């Protein structure tokens, strides 16, 4: 998982106008975020999303260029973070 989500998240969205224009530009981009979210539990392979009949929860947050999906599986109780990382770093940056 080495996509470049930071750049992709911004490309084009600002210049396009659509039915969501009154809610700002972000909804045009939200579909991409929904598409990138993990769909199945890494522990038991059950669907995570309610729309797919799953009982999980996936919450996305961003840190730098990385996108972190905090996942919980209601089928097996597995919980953990899945990171779409733009770059693999050998040493953790000082915080």
């Amino acid at each position, binding site marked *: 998982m080495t996509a470049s989500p930071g750049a992709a998240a911004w490309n084009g969205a600002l210049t396009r106008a659509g039915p969501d224009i009154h809610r700002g530009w972000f909804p045009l981009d939200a579909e991409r975020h929904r598409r990138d979210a993990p769909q199945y539990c890494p522990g038991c392979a059950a669907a995570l999303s309610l729309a797919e009949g799953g009982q999980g929860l996936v919450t996305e947050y*961003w840190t730098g260029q990385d996108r972190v999906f905090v996942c919980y599986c209601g089928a097996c109780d597995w919980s953990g973070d899945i990171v779409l990382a733009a770059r693999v770093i050998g040493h953790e940056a000082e915080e």
Partner: protein
Amino acid sequence: MLTAEQNEELTQVAAGTPMGELLRRYWYPVAFTRELEEFPIKAARLLGEDFALFKTPRGRYGMLPQACPHRRASLAYGVVEADGLRCPYHGWLFGTDGTCLDQPAEREETNFRDRVRAVAGQVQELGGLIWAYIGPSPAPELPRFDVFVMDGVRDIGWTDLPCNFVQIMENAVDPHHTEWLHGRFFEFMARHQGFDAPASFGKKHVKVGFDAFEWGIIKRRVVEGASEEDDDWRIGHPLVFPYNMRVGGANIEQMQIRVPIDRTTTRFMLYTVHAPAGVEYPDQPQVPDYQIPVFDENGRHRVDYVEGQDMMAWVTQGPITDRTVEHLGRSDVGVTMLRRMFKEQMARVSRGEDPLGVYRDFRERIDLPCEKNKFDAGGSFAIQFIDRASSRFSPQADALKKLHIKAHENQKAAAG
């Protein structure tokens, strides 16, 4: 961000929904004790359902669905009698357990009344509040959290807010907002409106942390100039799952209560106990309650006090904030943790288990972890808090300040 379906699920309160079923496993405050002393019946709304709450002349509490099972007239206009509540329309009488005891217009020989029952809630009094439980039997214990049973001077500010309770709870695991909403923004408003903003709220957060524990999530912070040895990190304070937050500092102990009245209305209550040592507390035959302002005369949010600022942030997110278009960052990990906790507990309920914070063994007092030295501000925090938080609207605000000052003087005198 969440999907629309996840946001829908997270913000439901209705019976039969996963979140609504979870929320029905807890007790909620539905009235002030003094209200039923002044008049023995009132309408109450909880989790989107309407009830008639009453107290019989014998001192027993009851809560029945507002619509009479007979012809749906409101029992909130009922006649309170020794055995229960009588419908004002045709006189059907219901006991506190929902049993139909009398149907005056029906013949004596019929057993019709045995075939009718109102689904009753369970009701208890604690700490100046009336608490109700409307979930499946048997009801769990009503948690006797420290603030509701401790000695001190009580004071309850409250208001009803036009938004879903989850966005208010998310604020309880968002320490960073403090230095901005109650720091920089407070200073900005103070400069323009000509008052002094308390400096302690604006301290920069160096570190935040969250730990799940038996009652919810403990929130910790290190502010600039402090360390992990200080109360804010070493002890922190908890979000008490699913609808409370325990805060405190400088001998002020508080439970912030956020009752889901319905999906887009939340009763916000600040249950405060002023408990400085070395001073006698006055008798309080009734706990004073007062409504705190949300809007000014122009319809704008009143943001010249701490909770007014919070309420502005919660309400302006919308009746149900659209989490499909939010942008969470790493500083929002507490928010993601809370959402996961809601989801985990929904799953427990669906499996027939008790969720977090539901317990069945009576405990006289439940002490919650809560820092004493708030924001490393020392004893001055008490006066700042009364001057610039919701207590300033209390009818006993001046008396509370005198109480803290007197306690401080007594302690100094005792120390020589």
